[in-house]
């Protein structure tokens, strides 16, 4: 069951200066903007990795301050740049992390891991027993994606998830994400506008700790704001 997300007038010292944003359950939103504009901080507010200095964050209408953060995180996938795989654990054990925390039976974990691994194009039989350091950067990134998706999260938070991937795999995974849209609310941080528009229904542009524009993906290139023009020009979108 996807969750709704709301940021109400959120400020974070030195990084966010009043962000208000509502994301409906099952929506997919891309956060774009230059480095340091506040995209990642906003993303990390959603699973409580960053605490607001003012304002509040609500998941399914419940303020985070009154939410069990550990339980929330276990039903939120979080995909980060650089994957963050546990180097001392095999690929399978990495992918099994959340299901084990949730107390699933080992056969169910195997099935779910097998399914998610085949979805990212890395069959469990071939890769399950390997350790992260024996994988390429792109493969590690994909295992990180599998680890975040294996337990069917209701929120999927992604911070530049496709950074280390070659264009073909990148495209495939973007399609995987599109297919996933009905199952989870997706928030997606990226520098790549074309990717944002492909994966998300809605694009939020951050600038200097504020939201500059917030539109449906298809309408984004029509905005007249100078920063939008810059982004569109730099992205060389297919016309």
């Amino acid at each position, binding site marked *: 069951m996807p969750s709704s997300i709301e940021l109400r007038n959120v400020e974070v010292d030195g990084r966010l200066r009043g962000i208000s944003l509502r994301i409906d359950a099952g929506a997919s939103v891309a956060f774009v903007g230059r480095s340091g504009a506040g995209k990642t901080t906003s993303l990390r507010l959603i*699973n409580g*990795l960053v605490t607001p200095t003012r304002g509040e964050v609500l998941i399914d209408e419940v303020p985070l301050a009154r939410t069990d953060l*550990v*339980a*929330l*995180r*276990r039903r*939120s996938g*979080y995909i*980060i*740049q*650089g*994957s*963050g*795989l*546990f*180097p*001392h654990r095999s690929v399978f054990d990495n992918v099994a*992390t*959340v299901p084990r*925390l949730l107390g699933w039976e080992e056969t169910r974990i195997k099935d779910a891991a097998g399914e998610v691994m085949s979805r990212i194009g890395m069959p469990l039989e071939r890769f399950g027993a390997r350790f992260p350091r024996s994988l390429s950067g792109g493969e590690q990134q994909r295992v*990180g994606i599998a*680890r*975040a998706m294996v337990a069917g999260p209701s929120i999927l*938070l992604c911070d530049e998830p496709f950074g280390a991937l070659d264009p073909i795999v990148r495209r495939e995974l973007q399609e995987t994400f599109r297919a996933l849209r009905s199952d989870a609310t997706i928030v997606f941080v990226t520098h790549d506008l074309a990717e944002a528009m492909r994966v998300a229904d809605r694009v939020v542009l951050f600038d200097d700790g504020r939201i500059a524009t917030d539109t449906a993906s298809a309408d984004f290139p029509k905005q007249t704001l100078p920063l939008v023009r810059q982004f569109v020009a730099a992205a060389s979108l297919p016309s």
Partner: protein
Amino acid sequence: MTADIIRITGEHMLIVAIAVGVAIVLGIPLGIYCTRNPRAGRVALRVIDAIQTIPSLALFGFLIPVPFIGGIGMRTAIVALILYSLLPIVRNTFVGIQGVDPIVRDAGVALGLTSRQLLFDVELPLAMPSIVAGIRIATVIGIGVATIAAAVGGGGLGTFIFRGVAMVDTRLILAGALPAAALALIADVVLSAVERRVIKG
């Protein structure tokens, strides 16, 4: 004579084992505490750092008049060795945990690990090579310092060395010095092997 050497070598190992054992039990939690409370941690590290710089014979000297833990005998030796062994263990636990890739720690928190799970399932396993290195250093230093413990009646292989020096008896000196050197080398080799194993782990 041979029987004496074996007995005293055993005594020497026992002193070091007790001291390093206690230092592990105290030092690893203290190292963890230092990572959780950086300010208090810095003070704690500074204090045990200072203890470490006190020359060993002087430290034995300081401990002799202290009631309950001091005096002449093996107890004083063990207390001094514990103090010496603490630093490498606390420091390496601290450094090992601090050295865990922040992205890995971040991922652990974001996946819903509790802080206890993060510590036992991620941070400590990844810090283990560093912690084992600390134990190795503590053990090797301990074997060396324990030879001086004989000066305060602490027993161990130093007994032969001090007696040999007093009696100008080279064989007696070597009866203490050779096993002490061998112990230190063996401990170093064995614990280095353990260290490599936990890295592979």
